[in-house]
């Protein structure tokens, strides 16, 4: 069968499965809609969390970024996994014990303040909306490349699928589709990696293959990669530091605490039956995530090697442009790969020297998407990668949209504007909010604002500097009060946004970059994407100082803190 037919077959089959699950898992109550009835098995929730967490960025972009950053790319590997340790120990069990439906709801109750709740809703919506735009773009790109339909058509198909299962089933439908999506995406990621590892090293496990010798040689794969990239004028792959040690430290820490503070991940832990399930479920989630995250560095290194070997099969002998393989032509048409014959010899010279390098554009995303083609794998593997990329984008989009919809219907509508609505009305309202969220996300995906490029990093920065500290202090301190928490969140976000916008312009409109005379990364050499940790420290400090200067926390709230620290009695706390 040709690639096109196979791709339609794979994508069509997976989509039918998602729809079948949606029909089976309809939500009958607000509890079903917000937390899937609260009865999800911890391993099942771990799998759903893994799919919820691993977005188009993890699936498509991450290995490509590591591929070109080498050792420096470790910040993503450690940052996006280490956050789960924080989640398991600092947040998930206690928020599960508290037993409500949304993250702002906890902040509102713990800081006995509707203002705090509104600030949390605003943080949540900014984080989640910026993040969801990236998923929508991923869906559009995957459709247009693999199914050769218009970007807009692809986007609409994706929106319809998400609409179907998230509006019907809420968290319940999303949970079970995410489990299916995890299976699709992990197969799609690991199967090509196993093939490539076998090809290059003879070892079927990519995690071991990366540390093995090349097939038919005594040279280690990483040593050879170090050698070839240095021959081309790049830094040594295994030691290429991202800006500086301090920057890598800050970047990793920002991603970790940002991960732990992302609402769409936290609410997944509200769906398990018990506090101890919340702990173990975080562990299972990380097991499933680690399968992809320990494979990614192998994919990154091997793809880089394969790419260079394709362009320069033997040293000094460059590929003739007219003899370039089919995948090269396919990706040229998408604009993600560009060649410019600077010395007009009809051959492709690739190096780190801007003047003579003829591969003028090699987009990060190609490294995963084109990897199976570069490694000459069978068509069904390529079709599987398309289905996997879509599964990753759809599962994360659905989780984010639920976080947005529930904060609108539960925190804003039921919590403030109309507290007297019945459960049935609230359920309908949450469905309508979900439909609007999907439409809004689709519009932003179709018409991405200028700031779309920098947005995922912004989401982590905001979560790290606002939501994570507020939640952690709410659990671990009985002295942080309303004034402290609100001032801390605003100061944390303010500092982070200030640094990001100062570099990249207000809402990423470059012309508005103020204070342009300051050198880039002026604060300790930290890049804007890595600044969330500084915002987090500011949040903690401001909250502590302001709380000292203002009143004590009411006794009733202190009792609440005591209550959430002890697992016993969770079921009674769940009453609404």
């Amino acid at each position, binding site marked *: 069968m040709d690639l096109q037919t196979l791709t339609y077959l794979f994508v069509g089959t997976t989509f039918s499965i998602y729809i079948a699950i949606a029909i089976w898992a309809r939500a009958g109550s607000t509890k079903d809609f917000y937390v899937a009835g609260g009865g999800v098995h911890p391993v099942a929730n771990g799998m759903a969390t893994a799919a919820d967490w691993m977005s188009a960025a993890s699936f498509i972009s991450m290995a490509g970024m*590591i591929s070109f950053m080498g*050792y420096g*790319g*470790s910040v993503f*590997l*450690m940052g996006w*996994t*280490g956050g*789960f*340790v924080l989640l*398991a*120990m*600092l947040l998930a*069990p206690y928020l599960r014990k508290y037993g409500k439906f949304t993250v702002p709801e906890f902040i509102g109750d713990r800081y006995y303040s509707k203002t705090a709740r509104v600030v949390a809703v605003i943080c949540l919506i900014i984080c989640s909306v910026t993040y969801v735009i990236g998923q929508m773009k991923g869906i559009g790109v995957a459709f247009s490349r693999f199914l050769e339909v218009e970007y807009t058509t692809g986007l609409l198909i994706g929106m319809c699928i998400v609409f179907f299962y998230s509006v019907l089933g809420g968290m319940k439908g999303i949970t079970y589709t995410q489990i299916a999506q995890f299976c699709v995406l992990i197969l799609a990621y690991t199967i090509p990696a196993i093939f490539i590892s076998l090809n290059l090293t003879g070892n079927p496990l990519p*995690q*071991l293959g*990366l*540390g*093995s*010798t090349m097939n038919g040689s005594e040279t*280690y*794969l*990483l*040593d050879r990669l170090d050698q070839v990239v240095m021959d081309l004028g790049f830094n040594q792959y*295994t*030691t290429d530091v991202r800006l500086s*040690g301090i920057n*890598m*430290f800050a970047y*990793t*820490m920002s991603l970790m605490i940002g991960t732990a503070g992302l609402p769409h991940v936290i609410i997944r832990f509200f769906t398990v039956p*018990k*506090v*101890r399930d919340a*702990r*173990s479920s*975080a*562990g299972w989630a*990380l*097991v499933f995530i*680690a399968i992809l*995250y*320990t494979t990614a*560095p192998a994919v990154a290194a091997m793809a880089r090697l394969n790419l260079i070997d394709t362009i320069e099969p033997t040293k000094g002998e460059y590929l003739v442009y007219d003899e370039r393989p089919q995948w090269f032509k396919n990706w040229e048409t998408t604009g993600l790969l560009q060649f410019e014959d600077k010395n007009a010899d009809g051959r492709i010279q690739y190096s780190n020297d801007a003047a003579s390098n003829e591969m003028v554009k090699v987009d990060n995303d190609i490294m995963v998407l084109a990897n199976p083609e570069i490694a000459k794998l069978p068509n069904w593997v390529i079709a599987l990668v398309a289905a996997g990329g879509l599964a990753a984008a759809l599962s994360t989009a659905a989780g984010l949209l639920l976080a947005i919809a529930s904060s609108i219907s539960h925190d804003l509508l039921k919590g403030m504007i109309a507290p007297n609505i019945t459960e049935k009305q609230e359920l309908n309202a949450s469905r309508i909010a979900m439909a609007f969220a999907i439409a809004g996300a689709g519009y932003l995906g179709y018409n991405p604002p200028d700031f779309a490029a920098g947005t995922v990093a912004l989401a982590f920065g905001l979560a790290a500097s606002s939501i994570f500290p507020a939640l952690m202090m709410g659990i*671990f301190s009985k002295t942080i009060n309303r004034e402290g928490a609100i001032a801390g969140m605003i100061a944390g976000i303010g500092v982070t946004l200030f640094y990001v916008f100062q570099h990249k312009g207000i809402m990423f409109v470059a012309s508005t970059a103020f204070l342009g005379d300051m050198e880039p990364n002026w604060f300790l050499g930290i890049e804007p994407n890595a600044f969330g940790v500084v915002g987090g420290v500011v949040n903690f400090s401001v909250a502590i100082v302001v709380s000292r200067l203002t009143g004590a926390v009411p006794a009733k709230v202190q009792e609440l803190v*005591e*209550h959430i*620290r*002890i*697992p*016993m*009695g*969770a*079921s009674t706390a769940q009453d609404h």
Partner: protein
Amino acid sequence: MSQMTDEQIKAYWSRNVSLMVKLLAVWFVVSFGFGIILVDVLNQFQIGGYKLGFWFAQQGSIYCFVVLIFVYTSRMAALDREFNVEED
């Protein structure tokens, strides 16, 4: 919770916090310590084709994270039993 005395509540919480602090120290050492701060020192050693510091940054730290969460889960389950604060 009513049958727990204030001392028991305090003891349970401080045991939890001290376990957490120990495990987070390991979390810090394997990632920020071995993967970033000490990476050049560890890179003088090899495991297979991996430089050791590079291995911690791209593989080892992730395996440690998984182990840490399960150690926390099982130790906390034991602590819950000891203080009789399990949910059922």
